């Protein structure tokens, strides 16, 4: 075997995984699972739903049906799929459940940046703390109203229209707040995609 897995980039691991190397999937899991599970838990109140959302995301990567390395990173793909699967599960539960459960995702706990986490690998602790510090600063530039709209969309999976109804605000105001808030966050990060 060539280089040891922990030194490989996510892209290399993905290539190995596609070549049938299960250890590459295992290593990708170790790198991303805590972040994905935390994300799923902030969308789903039920831990079992959160676990399924995470499993769906990793298995979708394993099947590699629609991941395109030219269009984004493994981490982005996993986060986008995990969030979307978690929201699907919350919606399915609401459809099956009673009306009072409908409130569950409407008051999301929102973003809360913990600068360090127990699961952070020691060698990446400083880098992760710095990254999370930047996210916290970026979120602090949002107005309370912008943040509320982004919370409802990101964690509650609500559409513009649903947010407008929930907050009893005009639709146009909600659209503007979401757009401007997300733009502020984008400006705060030197994203690799926006450079291209």
């Amino acid at each position: 075997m060539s280089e040891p897995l922990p030194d490989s980039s996510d892209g290399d691991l993905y290539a190995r995984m596609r070549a049938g190397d299960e250890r590459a999937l295992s290593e990708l899991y170790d790198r991303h699972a805590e972040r994905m599970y935390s994300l799923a838990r902030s969308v789903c109140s039920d831990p079992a739903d959160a676990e399924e959302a995470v499993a769906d995301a990793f298995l979708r990567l394993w099947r590699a049906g629609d991941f395109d390395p030219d269009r984004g990173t493994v981490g982005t793909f996993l986060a986008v799929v995990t969030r979307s699967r978690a929201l699907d599960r919350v919606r399915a539960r609401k459809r099956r459940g009673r009306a009072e459960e409908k409130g569950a995702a409407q008051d999301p706990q929102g973003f809360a940046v913990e600068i360090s986490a127990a699961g952070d690998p020691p060698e990446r602790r400083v880098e992760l703390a710095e990254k999370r510090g930047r996210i916290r600063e970026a979120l602090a530039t949002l107005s309370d109203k912008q943040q509320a709209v982004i919370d409802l969309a990101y964690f509650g999976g609500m559409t513009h229209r649903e947010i407008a109804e929930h907050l009893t605000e005009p639709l146009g105001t909600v659209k503007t707040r979401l757009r401007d808030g997300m733009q502020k966050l984008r400006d705060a990060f030197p994203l690799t995609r926006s450079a291209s």
Partner: protein
Amino acid sequence: MSTEQRWTDLAAAYVLGALDPEERSAFEARLEQDAELQAEVDAHRELVGVLSDAVPRHAPPAALKARILERARAEGHGGGARPIESAPSVRDAPPPASGDAGAAGPGGAARWTPWLAAAALVAALGTGYLAQRVDQQRDALAERLESVQAQLDDARASVAERDSLLATFLGPDVRTVALSATDQPPSARIFWNTATSTIIVAAFDLPPAPEGRTYQLWGIAEGGSPVSLGTFQTAADGTALVQRTVPAGTDFQIGAVTEEPTGGSPQPTSAPFLVGTWTDA
């Protein structure tokens, strides 16, 4: 605002899933032919990924990893991964084949072998490509089915809600009160189904109560004090249609609406701005 600007303005909402179904379809149609818009969407996807670091941390259960690896193993290495996996093995095929061809002599099979190898390569790539396409289509269909199911469920829930409203309106023992202000708008009408102890409030031209305040509905019996029939809030367009349950066996002659602190008050703290007298419907 230019048209391009309008589309890029929607990119964040598209990635977050905040567009209405019609808006989303239009956006996706545009996306297929607009590389710049696609780059914008990719950038917002990356932001959604970055923000996943900004949530309270939870360690995943230890058993989750084993479960995922087991499922991956059970599915087998394959699905969309096949094209890359199968292609190199076919590409490796020609050398031994041409060796065999050499043994068979210069004519006949020898001239065919490269063609066969090429055909096999094309077929293998095609199969892989098809497998990937089928996978993508299966995923897309599953998602579409889920979304149609969701719409159907929503439609059923909405019909059930309307049926329940209609039943309240159409019962044999329905009383109604038209509430109006001294000057023209706002106005409200209350339907009270005494058999089911249900009331429906329909309000018009009533701006939403300010933050920290709500509207409260009262029933007043002759010579008695006002009894709360619940609170309600109006939408941005000044309308409300809400259903409330009233205590069974109560009887009122007058209906009224006041503005109260959020959560409502045990007794009105302000003069009613909408008042009316109950009549049988």
